């Protein structure tokens, strides 16, 4: 786990630089959620919706939507696959994404269909993750998405 600007990031997952989603892969199944700096920038999650279990989603397509205190918009899939499970607890209590983004606040599980090709677009490894996040934290500050330190 590394910490940048008071936000925590596990290093045993992949990160999608386009969405700030984390992807934890076990076999052909990936659990997906949002990282700590992104959840912080969005404010309290109020409403979360996901596509139906069984639906196919390609990387970059919408797998659901979110309405939060400081963000409204689609949730874009970081990887391609079929949604095999959604987090019912999160649907009932969207703030879990803020309170425990890597644990109880996970979004969906997907059966991966193109991960070998797509993982090149994701960020992994402690050094790479740290370098990327340092640049991202600066960007988030400049855009006012997180408080300037």
């Amino acid at each position: 786990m590394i910490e940048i600007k008071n936000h925590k990031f596990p290093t045993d997952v992949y990160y999608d630089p386009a969405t700030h989603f984390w992807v934890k892969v076990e076999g052909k199944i990936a659990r997906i959620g949002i990282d700590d700096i992104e959840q912080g920038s969005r404010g309290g999650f109020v409403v979360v919706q996901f596509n139906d279990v069984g639906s196919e989603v390609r990387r970059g397509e919408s797998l659901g939507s979110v309405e939060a205190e400081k963000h409204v918009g689609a949730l874009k899939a970081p990887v391609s696959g079929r949604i095999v499970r959604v987090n019912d607890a999160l649907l009932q209590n969207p703030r879990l994404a803020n309170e425990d983004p890597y644990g109880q606040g996970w979004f969906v599980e997907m059966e991966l269909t193109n991960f070998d090709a797509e993982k090149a677009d994701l960020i992994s490894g402690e050094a790479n993750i740290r370098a990327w996040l340092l640049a991202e934290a600066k960007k988030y500050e400049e855009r006012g998405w997180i408080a300037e330190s």
Partner: protein
Amino acid sequence: MDSGVVTAVESRRAEAFAVRQENFCDTISFFAPGLKRFSTEEFQQKTPQAFRPVSLTGSACALQCEHCQSKILEPMIPLNPKEGLFQLAKRLHQNGTTGILISGGSDKAGAVPLKKYFPDIARIKNELGMRVMVHTGLVDRETARQLKEAGVDGVMIDIIGADETIREVYHLNTTTAAYEASLAYFSEFGLSIRPHIILGLHFGQFLGEYHALEMIQRYPVHSLILVILTPLVGTHMQNVPPPSLEDIEEFFYRARLQMPKTPIMIGCARPLGDHKVAVDHLAVDYGLNGIAYPADGVVAYAREKGLKPKFFEDSCSCGSA
């Protein structure tokens, strides 16, 4: 609901919508300022940095109002005294910001501490050409004069219409007369006034809203901004239910009829989810002129009603109908 009630509701909606059609062109404005990232199927924010809020006091506020407790200040850009307001605005301007909201916490008298910033505000207007809106809180005559002299584009103030709310929610030892006096000072100096009314401010209940509306009616305001009590986590009102849709609907109706020629906007602050969807549809039904961060589907609904949407990336307090 029986058919008689349905007919009465439809009749009132039609009446309010007709008032809009008589007094405005057929456009409806949608806003997505940079306070929130916003991208829906109907409206994609392209330049979230276009309009940015700045807090002169950081997250500090002497009032600690029951519904806010400084939470609203937290996402704003805090002014670093070492940098100064002009330099901050210049830095934002260089990054594509064309307008700023100058806000901040209040002092114990309910005023945002603006006075020492007027020279900087004048420079922001004159040298950078940025649009400057100001959340003022209560003002005295001299502050209103200096706001005008500094050249601000508009002033915003929450108008409270019940002494109980002023005391119990804002913790202020004053009366509604102080709010009306602020409107009078703004008006005297010809400032562009964009008053806000917070519906349900008295712990989710309507109390002074209609009095606030009456006060505002007496002055030549640019527009009226309606926001709705949003129970914020970490405040004393976090478990307070927001005001009912019935109360909101009634207020929209009366506001439209009582201020037929004034643009009425739905501001950023309102409960999310199903409540927001319902409120936004009511806003269209009752002929209001603009909506900030519209719920998905509301743009299409407005088109169905014969309205032409226009999209803006600054505050609804900046826009015109």
